[in-house]
């Protein structure tokens, strides 16, 4: 009989973010598919009651928590201590948590402490014949495996966006607090802040409805034999401002900067998608001036509807990977698209985020 522990962290106001609800959905579904299993919830944060109340009706029979100022920041030493205490108190055999940077950082270490095993970036959890199977991708999203494990506890970190979120009415949860004392030296690391791009900066936006991918073609010579990097920057910035799209770029474009070539100044490695970048999840994706074969196209493995603009009708990035390939000049298309968006936005038809 499995004992399932949902492990989530609260935001600064004590509430839960979307990935926590997704993990709650996965944990609740797993508990429902395993008759006789126990289902508990564990929360970590400065304050936890608001978050516990949000998922009061998720089916968990007990709500455990580690809370206090020491547990507000996302920090290995305190998060690991809290997660270990919750796992031991719950006697959990399965721990389900969202694959956020906070839990990705510490839960493998916690699995080590309790002699368990961990699978991160889980994209599917299923029960077949009483056995639990999880899906995850290998080789940078190039092949998908379904695996089962005999060792317990088994930590499952579900990728944000991969699971339907738990939906239910908030209630009042009775939270059982645990006291966790940080080990000596626990204060050696102090979180001093968060650096985030300015609100209007061109960056990745995980909650955006559209991923815009800028390829190296933007910096290459155009039909007139000249490069037009400043104009490319202006067009892309304008498009992103009007659509609030998330900005991705191919590795080649990011690397050009390191090689001293002309680049789009606002792109960093944080924007990189693909084999050595991220594989974001967005409902729609528009790639522009991208080139490359399969290893590069993994960057939009998890993009729903895909369209591409390229001058090459046989481009490996687009053909067979995109739903629509526009064989044309991206500069001209974006110029017109920006004008149209400007016009429609003037009438209040803003592009909605998902």
């Amino acid at each position, binding site marked *: 009989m499995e004992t399932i522990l949902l492990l989530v962290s609260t935001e600064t106001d004590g509430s839960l973010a979307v990935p926590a609800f997704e993990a709650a959905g996965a944990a609740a579904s797993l508990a429902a598919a395993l008759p006789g299993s126990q289902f508990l919830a564990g929360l970590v944060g400065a304050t936890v009651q608001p978050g516990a109340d949000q998922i009061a009706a998720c089916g968990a029979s007990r709500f455990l928590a580690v809370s206090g100022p020491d547990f507000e920041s996302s*920090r*290995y*030493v305190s998060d690991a201590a809290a997660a270990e205490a919750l796992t031991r108190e719950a006697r959990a055999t399965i721990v389900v948590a969202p694959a956020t*940077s906070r839990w990705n950082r510490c839960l493998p270490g916690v699995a080590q402490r309790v002699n368990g095993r961990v699978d991160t970036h889980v994209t599917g959890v299923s029960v077949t014949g009483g056995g639990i199977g999880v899906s995850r991708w290998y080789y940078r999203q190039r*092949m998908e*495996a379904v695996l089962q494990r005999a060792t317990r506890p088994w930590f499952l970190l579900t990728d944000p966006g991969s699971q339907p979120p738990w939906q239910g009415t908030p209630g009042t949860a009775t939270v059982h607090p645990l006291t966790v004392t940080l080990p000596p030296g626990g204060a050696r690391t102090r979180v001093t802040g968060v650096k985030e791009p300015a609100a209007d900066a061109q960056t990745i936006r995980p909650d955006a409805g559209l991923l815009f991918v800028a390829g190296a073609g933007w910096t290459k010579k155009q039909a007139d034999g000249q490069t037009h990097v400043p104009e490319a920057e202006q067009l892309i910035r304008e498009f992103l401002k009007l659509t609030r799209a998330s900005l991705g770029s191919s590795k080649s474009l990011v690397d050009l900067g*390191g090689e001293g070539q002309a680049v789009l100044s606002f792109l960093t490695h*944080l924007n990189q998608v693909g084999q050595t970048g991220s594989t974001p999840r967005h409902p729609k994706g528009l790639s522009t001036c991208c080139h490359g074969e399969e290893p590069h196209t993994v960057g939009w493995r998890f993009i729903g509807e*895909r369209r591409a603009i390229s001058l090459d009708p046989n481009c490996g990035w687009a053909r067979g990977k995109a739903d629509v390939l526009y064989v044309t*000049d991206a500069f001209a298309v974006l110029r017109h698209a920006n004008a149209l968006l400007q016009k429609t936005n003037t009438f209040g038809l803003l592009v909605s985020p998902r």
Partner: protein
Amino acid sequence: MNNAYQIVVCGGIVPDPLQTLEPVTGPAGPALKNEMMLPAVLDPWASHALYEAAHLARQAPGTKVFLVSLAPKAKLQQVLMTVGQKAPFELVALDGPAGGFTEPFETAAALADAIRAIPGLDPARLLVFGGWESACRGAGATLQMLGERLGIVDQFQGVDELQLGADGAFTILERIDGGKHQVSLCAGPPAVLGWATGNLPEPKNNPQVGMANMRAIMPALQKAKPAPLPAEGVVFASVTLPKQQRATRIVKDQSPETIAAEIVSWIRQ
């Protein structure tokens, strides 16, 4: 203040990203078709960790960099012909599988044993570097388990920057959700840092560094201890390539205005 560190960079090898990969099932579980024939590279994120280690070593005189690698040693030797020219390091090699279907728990155990066996290692000055994920398993789990085995509880993942303070403390930038960086202040070693891409370009090949490294690399490879990773307790029900090939509608001979209107309409749906 002693600012010299002992930096252990953990890095495996992965198939060259430009290779076509196909899963097969072997007697020991899933593997890649012609795995031993595929050209390999040092894992991209581990490479960044190595470059950052070399950069830190230049800032802190007396610092020594070790590269601990668990891989089939014949393949590792090929990869090191190039990697050895990038930065000075001392190799500690373990002869074992390097594929994506190995277990981080077992890999961490083998790496911890190898690190503990490094002569003269001072745990108080130890920095364990590696990639925050690998390009094969992509789990981002091994370093944390390794850190636990070495008793290190100051751990950072998705690191893009490490600044050394005058008092020996580090300011560390970690990637967190939403395209942001978390800034932390760590009192100093020991610590585990799983690097994302960092900010450094790939160093150019330096034949002199390569020659110096190779003198020690070959003996280290010869001394490589076997590290079988049996992947106990895990069963792969399937390993498949994604099949979805989209029927791409190719739009040619349309004006940019028409295409722009179609795209805007699609975005707004």
